[in-house]
């Protein structure tokens, strides 16, 4: 009886949570097993949701997002026989699987694309909540931009300092408009539900935007350059699947480009915008990263960005 608890932006944020949701929907369709989904509305309810599921015998329980770490810790301690899968954060308990992503690697690739598409020499980044995790996106992106063209200028803003920053399209739009007025002509949003405001503002001004987590190319076709994919849906899917097959393991899964955990989206919505030259250049970067020729600095390794 698998279950999932989304974070407070909700499963339809069209971004991070939705990527999980899509994976789970796929799992339900493939297997016919129903997954119970809960969407707490504030931080104080997260732990309650997890414990409630655990107490009723649900497992594995996927907890979506870094913000759930403490709640997972408490719930996993209270229900040591229940399997928990935590995305984006680490809880060191024998019944918790931690799934982590190398977002900086994926962001690097979209940074390359952004640099190749900018005419003004300035690109933008709109982050969600001001935390190291999001700075990791920002830093990877900057490295990609810089790798492509070291004369480029990157404008970066964070939406806020609380989890609500992942669900504030109004402010996302405002920040984007400011960046555009300051010259940015490609804007990358790593901001969950806030992104929709970013893409809207970009579309309104006729500049390019880059989505995140889910494939968001469809959202503003024509101005969505690409999306940085973070395949959290697969993580949820795999976790349920593994539990079914008895292969679920506690511990870490760290997924980067090499593991296919992150990547970039190329589909019918942006096919026409990506030239062969761009595609080749991005693939070159990808191969170099996988091969270890390019080491993308991880912001969270030392809480600083070399660029």
């Amino acid at each position, binding site marked *: 009886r698998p279950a999932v608890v989304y974070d407070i*932006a*909700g*499963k*339809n*944020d069209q971004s991070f*949570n939705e990527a999980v949701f899509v994976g789970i929907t796929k799992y339900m369709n493939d297997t016919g097993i129903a997954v119970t989904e809960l*969407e707490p509305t504030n931080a104080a309810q997260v732990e309650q949701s997890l414990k409630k599921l655990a107490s009723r015998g649900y497992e594995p329980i996927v907890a979506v997002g870094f913000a759930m770490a403490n709640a997972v810790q408490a719930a996993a301690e209270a229900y040591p026989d229940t399997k928990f899968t935590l995305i984006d954060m680490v809880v060191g308990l024998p019944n918790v699987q931690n799934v982590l992503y190398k977002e900086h690697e994926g962001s690097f690739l979209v940074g390359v694309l952004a640099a190749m598409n900018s005419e003004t020499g300035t690109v933008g980044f709109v982050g969600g909540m*001001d935390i190291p995790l999001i700075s990791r996106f920002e830093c990877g992106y900057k490295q990609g931009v810089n790798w492509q063209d070291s004369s480029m200028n990157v404008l970066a*803003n*964070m939406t806020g*300092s609380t989890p609500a920053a992942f*669900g*504030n*399209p*109004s*402010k996302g*739009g*405002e*920040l984007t*408009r*400011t960046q555009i*007025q*300051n010259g940015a002509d490609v804007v990358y949003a790593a901001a969950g*539900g806030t992104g*929709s*405001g970013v893409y*809207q503002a970009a579309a*309104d001004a006729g500049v390019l935007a880059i989505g995140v987590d889910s494939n968001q190319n469809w*959202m503003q076709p024509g101005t969505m350059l690409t999306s940085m994919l973070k395949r959290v849906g697969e993580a949820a899917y795999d976790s349920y699947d593994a539990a079914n097959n008895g292969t679920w393991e506690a511990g870490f899964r760290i997924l980067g480009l090499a593991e296919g955990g992150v990547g970039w989206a190329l589909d019918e919505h942006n096919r026409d915008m990506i030239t062969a030259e761009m595609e080749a250049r991005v693939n070159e970067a990808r191969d170099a990263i996988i091969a270890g020729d390019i080491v993308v600095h991880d912001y969270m390794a030392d809480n600083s960005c070399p660029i």
Partner: protein
Amino acid sequence: MNEFLLNTLDATLRYSTPLIFASMAGLFSERSGVVDIGLEGKMLIAAFISAAAASVFGSPWIGLGAAILASSIFAMIHGFATITHKGNQIVSGVAINIMASGLTMVLGLAWFKQGGQTPALANDERFLSITLPGVDIIDYIPILGDIYRELISGHNILVYLALLIVPLVWWVVNRTRFGLRLRAVGENPKAVDTAGLSVERLRYKALLIGGILCGIGGAYIATAHNAQFTKEMTAGAGFIALAALIFGKWRPYTVLSACFLFSFLKALEDRLQSVIIPGIGEVPVQFIEATPYLLTVILLAGFIGRAIPPKAVGEPYIKEL
């Protein structure tokens, strides 16, 4: 022209629009003697309904109409409770805010199954920016050209409506018969009653106007400034409008200035992660965020001028026991 300033002022205008609608709504209701802390709730329900209707029916105008209707219904609930049944105006306002907050989520989830959001609106489902005539001509004039192009032109129609509505409100309140009666009923309802006018009718009219204005404000947030409804989207704008109403001492133009001031602070807050004030050091954004509320408290405390509300505000008009 300073880019930063121009951009900030541009955003100020965008942020001030819902504040203007809501505070003018509050002005009508409070000048008639009915406290309106439900501005937030009315705008929220209007934002939701406008986005929902615009998305379903494919037109921002239908969205606007539906928003006005929804917000007016809430205004009439407030009227029914406080005018007809002499209920406590604060409690009624609290109820309206809470109901709006819950209903938008519950209905949104049930209707659209997108976690409480409405579908993103396509361009023909929302109010788009319009370029005012003559931008290219004036563009050549140095400072003025910039101001005209960046600041004055390029907003959506509701922004211009908000700016037009303020003089209109002033005119209605100060120059028309309805305005005279409105001012009278907020000061001394008994005098109005003995002059042969119905206090209840006047107050209902005022609340209805308030409902309509809040409806426009809400529609602006979801279908003009943004392109979909997201949960708790008004994010306190109704309360800031209330603060602006008090800060502007219930007078249209001063209220407008307060709206501009508070929106400017908000625009600044967006653009600055933190502010360095010489001599004081770094001021966190949270402080800027709290400034409108702090300013209002300071004003209310009489440290900067005095905010004297309409005399009868807050009191239900009870003729006989």
